[in-house]
């Protein structure tokens, strides 16, 4: 599992981290967290009374932040679904 390391020489073969990437797709994590935040804020924003509005200079900031978060979450989830890991187009090196 672990490759021998040659002391004092630059490691030319470091091909291990792809395991990290295969464990989970970061796009889903971003989408999920921001999505949950978005839903919570939208619900909170719909319940906001005059006190909350006055505090934020009359702006329904919870609602709008929630909507913004949901949009970003949707973009990441859509990106993850349409371009799953592993079929990334090969890039040119040099």
């Amino acid at each position, binding site marked *: *599992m*672990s*490759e*021998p*390391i040659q*002391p*004092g020489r*630059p*490691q*030319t073969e*470091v*091909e*291990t*981290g*792809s*395991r*990290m*990437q295969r*464990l*989970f797709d*970061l796009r889903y*994590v*971003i989408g999920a*967290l*921001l999505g*949950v*935040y978005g839903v*919570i*804020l939208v619900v*909170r*924003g719909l319940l*906001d009374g005059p*006190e*909350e*509005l006055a*505090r*934020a*200079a*009359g*702006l329904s*900031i*919870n609602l*709008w*932040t*929630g909507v*913004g*978060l949901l949009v*970003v979450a949707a973009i990441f989830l859509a990106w993850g679904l349409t371009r799953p890991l592993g079929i*990334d187009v090969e*890039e*040119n*090196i*040099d």
Partner: protein
Amino acid sequence: MLRLNPGWLDYTLLALYFVVVLGIGVVARRAVGTSADFLLAGRSLPAWVTGLAFVAANLGATEIIGMAANGAEYGVATVHYYWIGAVPAMVFLGIVMMPFYYRSKVRSVPEFLRLRFGNYTHVLNAVVFAVASVLIAGVNLYALAIVLNALLGWPEFLGIVVSAAVVLVYIGFGGLGSAIYGEVLQFFVILAGLIPLAIVAVRSVGGFSALADRVTASALGEEGLHAWQGTGVGDVTNPIGANWVSIVLGLGFVLSFGYWTTNFAEIQRALSAKDRSASQRTPLIAAFPKILIPAVTIIPGLVALIAIPNFGNDAAGGLEYNDAIPALIGQLLPEGVLGIALTGLFASFMAGVAANVSSLNTVVTYDLLQPYLAKGRSDRYYLNAGRWVTAGGVVIAIFTALLAADFNNIMTYLQSLFGIFNAPIFATFILGMFWKRTSGWGGFAGLLSGVLAGALVFVLAEAGAVDFGSGIATSFYQAGAAFLVDVVITVAVSLATAKPEPERLAGIVYGVPGADGVVPTLRQPKERVWYRKPVLLGGLALALTVVLNIVFA
């Protein structure tokens, strides 16, 4: 006055974030089997991940709180830290220097110096970097402790220790992989807190034109709204207190190029990209958010200045500049967004400390232990060493945090450190990469004398022997001195000593073919789609920066 009253919902949002970040750490642990997994995270990440981690690593609590403080103290001219002091250097890194780093296959920035100049320069740079890392990690810890103290009433010492423990668990599990994934997540949460804050802040003072009028009427005056007005040589009236020459050369050239192109905490993110093209795009992708971040740091600073009585006036019992963002969060955000902003502050703290700790453990393990102090051990030894260094670094950072408590403006303190440590390294790298004649002794003598020159200017200014006008101007001159001394000494000593052996140059110096026959040049990777072309991305970032500088001149 700063105390918040977060509701259960705010704490839920914060707790949710910790669950996800610690979850990443725990899952990432399954990917850690070797020291390379823990310390390098492989070279497999896509450019958007490394790019956002690159910008988030610099988006620590010090950056957010410090830049809002600068916004209140110096006005719009604070944009120089972004548009002059970051973007050109990031573009230069992506297009000119990254190909050399990536091709050399080094695991750290000090390791490049080892290949090029030999052991003395390597040890000097590795030790200086390790010391700077724990100092800066300490500053980040202190920044969060102030926030916890002010917002939630935690004693500062408790805040420092608890925050340090969280970051220790998180990096100790998954290493660089979880640090980078966490940073990308942090990037979004930080912005999700800061963008609503900036919008509400502007609205609370009656919109942009009312904000501008009131800043003009404030202590900053008309020039507080301009980046370049009043920065003439010999006639500095801009609140930033430095003329345009020292801004362009000191901050723009020496200080920022030193930081962005040689700071391993940043370069490490680009080195973990999956190929050369992705590594080049890492700082270029990072440049775009970097261009826009001042909107969410400087604007709250300006609003705090005009909306909070006696802001920045200690004598009259007002709040400190560093309180700008925490104070506005408390005054303006209702339950809900308040929790997001609080989480964003935690996240930004973690981004900063995680970056410092995850680069510190790599340098100590691969640049000090493996080649010198504990040669030829098993890989398991180095993996465990990396974990212990992580723990040790966090403990030392706690003590540094107590030291940082003596400085009024965190950012000036940080800039002082960067001026001493980073400015000379950039000179050494540029000469090493592009001038074949640079010898091992030249590199060593130049770097050492550069660090000493920077430290000397810092000490003289602290002692009051020289006066450059403001703390910021002092850090510019200090960086300039370090850079110039490094260049002069490196060139002089290189010419006086023997030419470097050819194997020190092969494949890592411009125009000298490597063992594989590839000649390092600045030819850019061929990409078919426009958003993957490094030169195009870099050009776009620079063009946008020029336009913004003209608009806010």
